């Protein structure tokens, strides 16, 4: 770093760090009535015009529209603006848009800043126009303070590996893999079961067109199995994924199958085998051998030994299968192995599990043999199933004369199962009712108990009408209980027909529980592999619910199928193709630009203490503490969390675009707020800031107390920042970030926790009320938690008196030395040792004023 730059980075209040005097334009957006409805945008714009260095300020109806963007370009040219603030929606939505706008007008896009006066203001203060307007002014003032100090940056590009990893080999994973493979990319598909195919392979027919499920899936399965660009890893698990967009490394565990690829699936081995186990594919309605192939159409068509069943209580395998195999494909000595692959993109297609109906005791599932679930029904009517497609009562193996379906089992319930609608069960039951009709005619009576029939898709209502026309009775009412009539296993249902208000007692020979879907039981593991987020219902959260529906919040990762939410086959396939297209765009380009937010070391100030290297989650900093050589950042490895900058006690390492001076500028302006219940809030880009956005999108109302300062990671929040806020007079400070296991920078938020705990200890010692500093882990889906936290903190803030604030200021002044002071001392010392530099700095200071 040159002396000149060195001198300027001190960035005193109101002074620009670059040669060029700041000329700031502020564009306040009405967003129709979204903002203007509860914020007086004109007065915000008028106020912005009074701020130092602002040369143009105005308001527009829609800043993101073409005319809106054109105005920005025109004003940049007309007023020679070199910095722009747009006060509108969340930067997570439109920062890329406006960065593009200012770039087109010849500005550096890093000298642009947004004030989020929609999600963080107008939408959450719908009924408090005065409070909302005051808050919007504060937010604009904070943005102006930051933009004044922003420096131009150059972005670097990284290469994108043109291989994709697809996790999950159900229909969604298969489709995504085929689309990518057909586009010329290499694809690795990892499936935990011995065969690909997923849940769709188990279903009999599909709605609304009644195609045979396996008949339409099997060709796709074998295509995936034979595709030159696709490598299948079945009976495998992803153990770890490291790296970042374009450059992931995945470790995949191949569990031992004990049968080699020489297997021709002739079945001689299974004939010889004497050990039995329940057949998982048939939901335990039939048995299989210890050496088995999951189902006839399995891909790969290769047997597998279930060692637990094979051995039973014996210490060694009997070896009969080995003897029976002519190809010598049985290898009882086979071991698990781990392979490592490099991929540029990852598609998560991990699917769902089925709700366990034993949780509803009044239905006696698992106890009464003739109470079955949807998946069991599918196997019972499937020609490839245990009864060759004959629907029979498990209790006596005879075809039932009456069947009842009960809908919403485990769905739409705050008590049993899940609060959401499982999306497919209504149509699945309607399809099943028609299947029964097809096979057994009208002699078999069918009643469907439901509370709402949701037949919203293309062709769905037609199918519903067909079922009704076929004499299937739809009765609106959810049965309260099923009891088994003594002696004959008939099932007695008590239910209110709510449309008549009559209580019915009806006997059936079979009851099918239409169970819903729930998030895959290993979703949590996948979540941690890729630092994804999940919504409260357990499904993976998309980057944007409307506009980025298949992008995960982690760049380079995409979602499809039921992993993202319950959906039918058509929607899963559609989403899979979308995810493949999104991944293909990245890999097709072959490179991706990385935000210029990496860390930079000021070698003059570095004492080579090594703290920064210690806290870096990416091992991206090298420092030799013995040789006392200054720290060095490996830029390609740096992800830009800023934890190092927060940790350094000497201000010797800073994060581009999120420097101490820039953030402190925001803090100073936030604490200048007139709000008496001020909650100065630090939020990380990925979780808590997004959670606050989510609260806004959901219109969760709260007091206009929060002034949010966004950093990439909560690990960027230094002790200095918090204490500066309190020293400035803030009644309360909230530090928020991702949940501890969900940090987007591996584990940088552990540092956040440490720092806040250290601060609490100091507060205890100093006699500052601890509850004035709060720490909250808020995920991107936890808008309600953000609302709750701010509401609570605002109440605490109101209890802080002017006297208490004054005392806090004195305490901090007495007990704490800020980094800025230390840096000034270090510089003075350096200057003393090098008078030339001191003179230069002095001259600079003169010119600057």
């Amino acid at each position, binding site marked *: 770093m040159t002396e000149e730059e060195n001198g300027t980075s001190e960035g005193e209040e109101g002074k620009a760090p670059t040669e060029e005097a700041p000329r700031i334009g502020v564009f306040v957006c009405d967003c129709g009535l979204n903002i203007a409805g509860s914020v007086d945008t004109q007065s915000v714009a008028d106020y912005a015009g009074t701020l130092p260095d602002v040369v143009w300020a105005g308001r527009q109806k829609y800043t993101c529209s073409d005319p809106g963007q054109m105005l920005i370009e025109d004003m940049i040219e007309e007023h020679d603006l070199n910095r722009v603030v747009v006060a509108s929606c969340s930067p997570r939505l439109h920062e890329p848009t406006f960065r593009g706008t200012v770039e087109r007008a010849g500005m550096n896009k890093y000298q642009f800043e947004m004030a989020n006066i929609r999600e963080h203001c107008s939408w959450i203060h719908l009924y408090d126009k005065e409070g909302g307007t005051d808050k919007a002014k504060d937010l604009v003032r904070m943005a102006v303070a930051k933009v004044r100090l922003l420096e131009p940056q150059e972005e670097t590009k990284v290469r994108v590996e043109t291989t994709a990893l697809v996790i999950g080999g159900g229909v969604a994973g298969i489709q995504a893999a085929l689309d990518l493979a057909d586009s010329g990319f290499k694809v690795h598909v990892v499936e935990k079961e011995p065969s690909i195919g997923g849940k769709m392979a188990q279903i009999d027919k599909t709605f609304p067109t009644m195609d045979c499920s396996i008949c339409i899936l099997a060709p796709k399965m074998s295509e995936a199995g034979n595709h030159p660009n696709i490598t299948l890893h079945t009976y495998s698990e992803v153990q770890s994924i490291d790296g970042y967009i374009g450059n992931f490394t995945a470790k995949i565990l191949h569990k031992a199958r004990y049968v080699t690829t020489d297997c021709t699936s002739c079945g001689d081995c299974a004939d010889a085998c004497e050990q039995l186990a329940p057949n998982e594919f048939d939901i335990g309605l039939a048995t299989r051998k210890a050496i088995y192939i999951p189902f006839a159409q399995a891909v790969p068509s290769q047997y597998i030994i279930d060692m637990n069943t094979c051995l039973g209580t014996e210490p060694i395998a009997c070896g009969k299968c080995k003897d029976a195999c002519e190809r010598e494909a049985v290898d009882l000595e086979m071991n698990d192995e781990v392979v490592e692959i490099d991929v540029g993109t990852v598609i998560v297609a991990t699917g769902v599990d089925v709700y366990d109906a034993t949780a509803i005791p009044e239905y006696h599932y698992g106890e009464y043999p003739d109470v079955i679930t949807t998946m069991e029904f599918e196997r019972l009517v499937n020609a490839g199933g245990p009864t060759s497609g004959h629907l029979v009562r498990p209790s006596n193996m005879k075809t039932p004369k009456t069947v009842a379906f009960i809908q919403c089992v485990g769905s739409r319930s705050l008590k049993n199962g899940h609060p959401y609608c499982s999306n497919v069960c209504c149509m699945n039951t309607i399809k099943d009712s028609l299947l029964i009709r097809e096979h057994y005619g009208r002699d078999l009576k069918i009643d469907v108990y439901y509370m709402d029939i949701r037949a919203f898709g293309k062709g769905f209502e037609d199918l519903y009408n067909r079922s009704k026309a076929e004499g299937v009775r739809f009765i609106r009412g959810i049965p309260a*209980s099923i009891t088994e009539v003594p002696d004959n296993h008939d099932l007695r249902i008590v239910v209110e027909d709510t449309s008549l208000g009559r209580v019915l007692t009806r006997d059936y020979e079979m009851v099918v529980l239409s169970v819903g879907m729930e998030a895959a039981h290993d979703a949590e593991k996948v979540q941690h592999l890729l630092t994804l987020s999940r919504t409260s219902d357990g499904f993976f959260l998309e980057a944007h619910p409307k506009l980025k529906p298949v992008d995960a919040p982690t760049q380079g990762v995409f979602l499809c199928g039921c992993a993202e939410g319950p959906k039918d086959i058509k929607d899963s396939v559609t989403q899979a193709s979308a995810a493949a297209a999104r991944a293909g765009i990245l890999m097709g380009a072959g490179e991706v630009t990385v935000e210029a937010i990496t860390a930079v070391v000021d070698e003059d100030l570095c004492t080579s203490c090594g703290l920064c290297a210690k806290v870096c989650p990416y091992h991206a900093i090298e420092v030799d503490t013995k040789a006392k050589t200054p720290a060095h950042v490996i830029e390609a490895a740096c992800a830009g969390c800023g934890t190092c900058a927060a940790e350094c006690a000497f201000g010797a390492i800073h994060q581009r675009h999120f420097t101490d001076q820039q953030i402190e500028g925001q803090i100073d302006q936030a604490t200048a707020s007139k709000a008496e219940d001020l909650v100065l809030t630090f939020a990380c880009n990925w979780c808590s800031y997004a959670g606050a956005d989510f609260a806004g999108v959901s219109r969760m109302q709260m007091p206009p107390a929060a002034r949010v300062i966004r950093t990439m990671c909560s690990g960027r929040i230094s002790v200095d920042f918090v204490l500066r806020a309190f020293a400035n007079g803030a009644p309360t400070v909230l530090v928020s970030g991702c949940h501890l296991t969900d940090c987007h920078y591996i584990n940088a938020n552990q540092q956040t926790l440490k720092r806040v705990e250290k601060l609490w200890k100091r507060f205890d010692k100093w006699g500052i009320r601890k509850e004035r500093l709060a720490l909250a882990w808020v995920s991107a889906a936890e808008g309600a938690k953000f609302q709750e936290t701010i509401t609570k903190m605002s109440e605490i803030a109101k209890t802080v008196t002017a006297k208490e604030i004054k005392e806090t200021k004195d305490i901090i002044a007495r007990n704490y030395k800020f980094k800025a002071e230390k840096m000034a001392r270090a510089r003075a010392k350096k200057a003393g040792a090098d008078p030339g530099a001191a003179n230069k700095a002095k001259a600079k200071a003169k010119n600057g004023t």
Partner: protein
Amino acid sequence: MSKYAFFLGCVMPMRYPGIESSTREVMKQLGVELFDVEEFSCCPAPGVTRSLQSSTWLAVAAHNLVAAQEAGLDIMVVCNGCFGSLAEAAHMLNHDKDKLAEVNKVLKAAGSKEYKGKTNVNHFAVILQDEIGLDAIAKRVKHKLDGMNVAIHYGCHFLKPSAVKELDNPETPRILDDLVEVTGATSVDYRHKQMCCGAGGGVRANTPDVALKMTEEKLNYLDEIEADIILDVCPFCHLQYDRGQKDLDRETKYPVLHLSQFYGLAFEMDNKLLGFNMHDVPVDL
């Protein structure tokens, strides 16, 4: 030796005193010391009192909790109704400071001591299972009841509302079945085992015929299986089944035993102490 304030309630001491004498003797044999508290009144019954005016219900329940508090004891009940009132009131007052303050205002105005929010209320079946334990009970069984088919009636306010009671799954509980089977008897399963006897909620008082119809429905389920007796843990359910069978004039009649009387049998207590002569359905076992 554990000690409890023995909460009598109304139905047991004034309609089925045999349950009271059995309970006193059974608990004595199992090493539980029971104390009488002359400040105890009606719990008061949830069906009528709470339905009419919940503030009265809460205040009188609090009065009983205070009585135990002053005696320095936790409460033991042998009636689901009393359990419903006292346990729910205690749950409410021990967790909600505003409610507690409100009730204490009433108590104070009436000249009573205030409730501190600490009294615990225990159903005797829970004391039997958790504190005394099945092993200790088994040791006391002198007369093995092998071959006796027992239709257990749990009653409603023992386990429900489950969010307050948190004792056992109210749809598929085991607690009474285990306590019955420790004597060698068999707990028989039957349809709608968890159904109400029909008496609660003020229904027996207001529309006795409706209450009786529910009792009849439940008895019909018993007819589907082989049951020798009905076993309850609530004198009010006990009364509904015992008197109800007389009023219904059914062919098959099931003797009705409270768990304490049932244990009296198994422990070979003096039959006179069990008070079977005061039952409408003869108990001849």
